């Protein structure tokens, strides 16, 4: 079973976000980057499926600047077999979702896979579009926000999370799926895995050479910090809190 996992390098969740002077990017200096957490669930599931099947390979793919190589190395250290790096000149927020999806689709041309996996969303732009975009561009079915998965031969049965419940979805390979928290517990790379990762092949493709129009259809005009919250106050008792909720803001 051949599986390709798309992953994205993002700032760590503890990062204090500051807007850079251009107003269209965040300050990237000095921040710690990680593989977007939902992508780690996708990598883990792919490795387990490969190993359960006893054949096939897991390839990790990313679209990003030169520094995104570290994210691919993390995937390789977890156990992926090879990597594809679509190298972009744009800042990470400068490419919109649709242009990125076109780059991924183009990079996959001529590559065969049974499953294309990715996290349900990257935790930087939180757009939650990539799975559906790529599935449509490749004309394959999709199951997003997968929390439980069974693959038997060509048959796929997955649980996807919806508000207050789950949908059970069945389909045939090849398919695109996005991983939801709860699908599995991602492994930490072992020291051996980290050493081996350095020798695994990474195919590099320059995004600018792929013949894709990268001009965004969703353009970031400016960025702002969230509006400051109005000052609150400390209440001295439950009675005062009940009064505030029922008489001041009247939400109860």
């Amino acid at each position, binding site marked *: 079973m051949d599986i390709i996992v798309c992953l994205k390098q993002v700032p760590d969740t503890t990062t204090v976000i500051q807007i850079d002077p251009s107003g269209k990017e965040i300050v990237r200096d000095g921040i710690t980057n990680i593989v977007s957490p939902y992508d780690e669930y996708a990598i883990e599931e792919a490795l387990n499926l490969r190993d359960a099947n006893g054949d096939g390979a897991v390839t990790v793919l990313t679209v990003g600047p030169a520094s995104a190589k570290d994210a691919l190395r993390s995937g390789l250290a977890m156990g992926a077999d090879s990597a594809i790096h679509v190298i972009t000149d744009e800042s990470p927020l400068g490419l919109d979702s649709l242009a990125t999806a076109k780059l991924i689709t183009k990079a996959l041309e001529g590559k065969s896979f049974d499953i294309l996996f990715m996290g349900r969303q990257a935790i930087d732009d939180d757009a939650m579009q990539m799975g*559906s975009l790529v599935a449509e561009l490749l004309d394959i079915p999709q199951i997003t926000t997968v929390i439980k998965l069974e693959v038997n031969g060509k048959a796929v049965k997955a649980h996807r999370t919806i508000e207050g419940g789950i949908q059970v979805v069945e389909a045939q390979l090849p398919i695109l799926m996005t991983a939801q928290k709860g699908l599995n517990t991602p492994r930490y790379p072992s020291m051996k895995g980290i050493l081996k990762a350095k020798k695994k092949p990474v195919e590099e493709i320059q995004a600018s050479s792929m013949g894709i129009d990268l001009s965004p259809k969703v353009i970031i005009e400016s960025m702002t910090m969230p509006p400051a919250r109005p000052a609150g106050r400390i209440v001295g008792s439950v009675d005062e809190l009940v009064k505030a909720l029922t008489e001041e803001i009247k939400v109860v």
Partner: protein
Amino acid sequence: MKILIVAETKESALRKTSFELLSQASELGSSDITALLIGKGVASLAPQLGHYGASQVLVAEHDLLEHYTTEGYTYAVKQAIDSLQPDLVLFAASANGKDLAPRLSARLDAGLVSDALELKHDGSKFVAVRPLFAGKAYANVSIASSPALVSMRPNVVSVKPADASRSAEVSNLDVSGLSADMIRAKVTSVEQSGAGKLDVAEADIVVSGGRGLKGPENFNLIENLAEVLGAATGASRAVVDAGWRPHGEQVGQTGKTVSPTLYVACAISGAMQHMAGMSSSKYIVAINTDAEAPIFKVATYGLVADAFEVLPELTEKLKAAKG
């Protein structure tokens, strides 16, 4: 300005997000608002969409549209867009809306803004505000395509009151071209966890518990308060990672980002990744023993107290206040 809104239903009723989208469409100043109603046996819901501001309702009825499927619903929305040629298509940024809207973005080669908090038209193009990094920053974006596609975060648009005197022109959308083989990912069942249980992402009031509650057995304090308030229950990442609460309840950067009218944080200190997910709530109540806890910085009302002591009292007194 011609606007198409994709209505959502649940258990044979329209979801509140459908009315939010209609209110958003009328706030943009449009009088040409079409609501698309997709499903099986849903036509009876059409007049209600008129009461909330739709000038026209397109009904896409088909046996294969009984449950949401990506491909079935993508087909129906594409049919509606082809027949109407709208300037803007609005979706709810719900689980299904987020699955569906990008599929159409790729099919139409049109720009999609997801999870928008605000939407305006500046005279030449649609401009929206959307959160990045779970709300640690906001982006002001414009959409350079027609149609423009936008999914709106639930709960951010206030619903204009219904007017039963308003009626929409109702017609059927031709979806006869839909066949079973076009739906390759088939929904075989839908399981709701707990009858009528509200989801944190769409609830108007959320009551969340954190590690300070010491164990899963103590979340009855959260559930009891939530029940009195008609609220959904939420949880911090620590609590979910410890296995005390289901993943679906997690609020924060690696969980759900919520914007309820009232968010009650109990025994949650306020890690940055949690605060990113809830600080756009209209009002926040924080209950924590540590007066220095970061959660108090965003709280409308803070109560420095032990949740074990004050939650039963708060629950009883709010119950009494509600009558």
